């Protein structure tokens, strides 16, 4: 297992790192039809606090911001795509997290009122064929247009979150590339 740094799209704000969820070493074998969940860590590498949001419904298929788009390539592997949401939950002030310099968080772990969801493609990843797999994650917050963030469920007051949306750095970051061989 190795991580290819050259394909990262870097940012001076934060990094996105993906890694096997369990304790794996390069000597650990990855086997066909054995679940191999992937974890995510986002770290503030700037000298200032930054605001960020974890995975919300619609994030994984890119219908709303923040977009968390996983990419899994393997021989003949068909990546899991979650059900396309017909309506998306409103983003709330509590969904925004402030990361201090050096601080990191898992964007799929709900806590403290944050309604984060798993990335289905990562959580349920089970290689189906042998061969080399390459996995990455693109995180995009690159929209200052509120509409792309707010969600579509009714009865929602956007006023409390508008200011937060503008606090999030509007950028696109690609994670490390996780490459490994499935036996």
């Amino acid at each position: 297992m190795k991580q290819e740094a050259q394909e990262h799209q870097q940012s001076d704000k934060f990094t996105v790192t993906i890694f096997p969820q369990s304790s794996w070493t390069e000597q650990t074998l990855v086997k066909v039809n054995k679940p191999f969940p992937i974890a995510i860590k986002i770290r503030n590498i700037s000298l200032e606090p930054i605001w960020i949001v974890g995975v919300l419904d619609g994030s994984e298929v890119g219908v709303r911001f923040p977009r968390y788009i996983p990419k899994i390539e393997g021989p003949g592997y068909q990546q899991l795509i979650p059900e396309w949401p017909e309506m998306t939950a409103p983003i709330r002030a509590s969904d925004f997290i402030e990361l201090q310099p050096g601080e990191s968080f898992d964007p799929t772990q709900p806590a403290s009122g944050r309604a984060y969801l798993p990335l289905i493609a990562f959580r349920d990843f089970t290689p189906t064929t042998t061969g080399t797999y390459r996995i990455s994650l693109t995180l995009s917050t690159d929209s200052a247009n509120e509409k792309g963030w707010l969600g579509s469920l009714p009865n929602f007051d956007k006023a409390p979150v508008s200011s937060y949306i503008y606090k999030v750095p509007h950028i696109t970051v690609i994670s490390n590339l996780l490459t490994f061989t499935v036996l």
Partner: protein
Amino acid sequence: MYTIDPTTAPVSGLNMTGNGLNYSVDQVARMQNILMRKATYEPENVEYDKSAPERATYPSTAQNSFRSSNVGKETTAENQKRNVSGRYRGKSPGSNIELELRIDVDGLRPTRRVSGDFYQTVGGTITYVGSFIVTTPTLTVITPTHTSEQERVIIDGEGIFTFTTGSPRLWITIPRVDGFMPPASAVAQFMTTAGVPGAQYTCAFESSFFRRVEFEMDFVKSVQPFKSYKTGVLPSGGPDRTLTVAAAFAEAGIDMPDPDGTNEVPFDGAGIDSKWTNRELHTAMENHFSRYHNEPGWRVWLLAATLHENGPGLRGIMFDRDQRQGCAVFHDVIGGSTDQIVRAQLRTYVHELGHCFNLYHSHHKEYMQPPQPNRLDALSWMHYPDYYRSGGLTGAAAYWAAFPFQFDDLELIHLRHAFRNDIIMGGNPFGLGAADLDPLLFADPIEDLSGLRLSIKAAESYYFGEPIVVELKLELTDIRGKRVNTRIHPNYGYVQIAIKRSNGKIQIYQPLLQQCAEPEVEYMDVNMPAAYDSAYIGYGKKGFYFDDPGAYELRAVYHAMDGSKVFSNTLRLRVDAPINEQEREIANLFLGEDQGKLLYLLGSDGETLQKGNDAFEEMIQGKHKSHPMAIYAKLVKGMNASRPFKKIETDLKSKLVSVRPADYMLSKDLLSGACGQTIAADPTADSMAEVGLDNITLNMAMQRLAEVQKEQGDVAGAQSTCQDMVNYFSKPHIPSFVQDRISSQAAPILGVDYTSGTESKPKRSKKK
């Protein structure tokens, strides 16, 4: 305010989901008693908030694993007694209130709840009154000790009501009958908490289902709609059975028969890109849903379509969030014939229809009002399989392996027992609880045999501060003719108008001065098929009703002589925010309390209203005198000047009454200005002019102007005004009987004998 309490006599949860078997009432009662004896037993912590869908919340202690399908069975194997659960209906003696009673204490997945809806029949209309639910009734099966006695089921509990009630306790008695006997009636006795009897309803058994919904499905050409799925084909958490959409809802207690036939919707309904937008779907619904109606009703439409514009992965959508009567599924995404695909089709169809019953996703429950905890472990039609999480199991595979093809327990309670407006299509909007509106006054009639139709009309938009005047029209729909009270101005109280602001707040317009007048009864028939009036409703007892820019919705109700309530269309209008300093200044000249009263009264010399008169004078003479809003100031002051004004000199001991005589000269100038500006503004309008007086007010003002001119001795001027009036109202869209009435108003001044025959009618000149 509505004050009927249907539970008062006229002056004359147990988590009983169990194992999903078809329970007898004996079993349910025994389980209830066991639980009550348990030292650790805590009363079921059910909170039922009337303002939200799926409102019941309680700790889920038992998984509702479905093991048998006994839909439609009304008897139990245990003792061959007929189940008592189902829908009952009946009236209280001497009352016009009907109760639909839902008893849910045995049978398939009993929730051990009782609920009901009240309806009032007045004249030719049936109107919804309110709902209730008993969440934790005590269930007792009385075994006879004597042969002359009959075995019976007693259900006793205190209800939660949508209205204030003096008799919240409900005592229901249902005789138990053998399976081969006809179902027995239920007697529902309401009583006070102290046990004093209130109203009693004897309700005949109607159905073993709790609700009935008309289901219609159409499909786009090339789409092969879902028909059925055999649940045992793939591993699942439930028994093997064949499910159609109707069967899935039947298991929840909803009678929603599969549509007899489906219609093909032309593919071009999706536009040239072949992708459906919500607007296109709504148009398709309006065109193809035979039961489509812009009112609450137990009906739902599903379109099996191709693809939605929102994305290539969207399986289905409830596109009609306001009314919840339409949804669509997309076969470019869910189409196919493998077992997995057909299974997904079934889930998608039921899931989207579930939204129409005001059900949220299992992972969106926290966004309802009020919120509930999300239920990520729900094995429900309403869950997204990907988000399923229970114990260490997650995802779609785990969901499908355990899914018993059903709604979860709380959704089941909502489907069977939610307050009517929280579930009925066209009731509360998706996710919203009850509105701040008197439930009876503006509830939609279930049935309308009044033979009358009420419409309300106004301009689409208004300046901020502009007087809001609505035109009311009451017309006959029963061609046989009938006697009708034609006092339709809200001042008389026979018509009431609800005003809904964009923030959802609803107010009932209350006139500043309620006029107590006997009905003015006229015989309506083909010769006089409608009555008209216009009303200024900008100001009333509660002050200004349109004092914020934004969108407003208005609806009126007419109280007919036979007690029927005739509801109008919903009128939408907009008050525009001022866009410049001039409009802000003009708004300030109109939005004072004095001005509101002067507009309501059509003028006054009252000293306490001097500020208002000064503002209108400023409007007429000042820098804004050429603005269209000056018309209203001229009307108010012109009408006031046309009549004498009596004033009591309170500073004198004798309290002499002084009279200010009519000022015909001033009145003529002002009224001719107001009328002339209106006519000039839009002489060819087919509808209400965007600026200026409405037709009815204009008609009144022109009549007064002609009278003033006549009083002044200006007969030629009066005749000219009358001729202008006849000409103006001779537009093709104005009904001939209205034109005739205007001609008859003009006739005395024009010097023609209108009553002697049509030949002597005032002629409509071609002059503008």
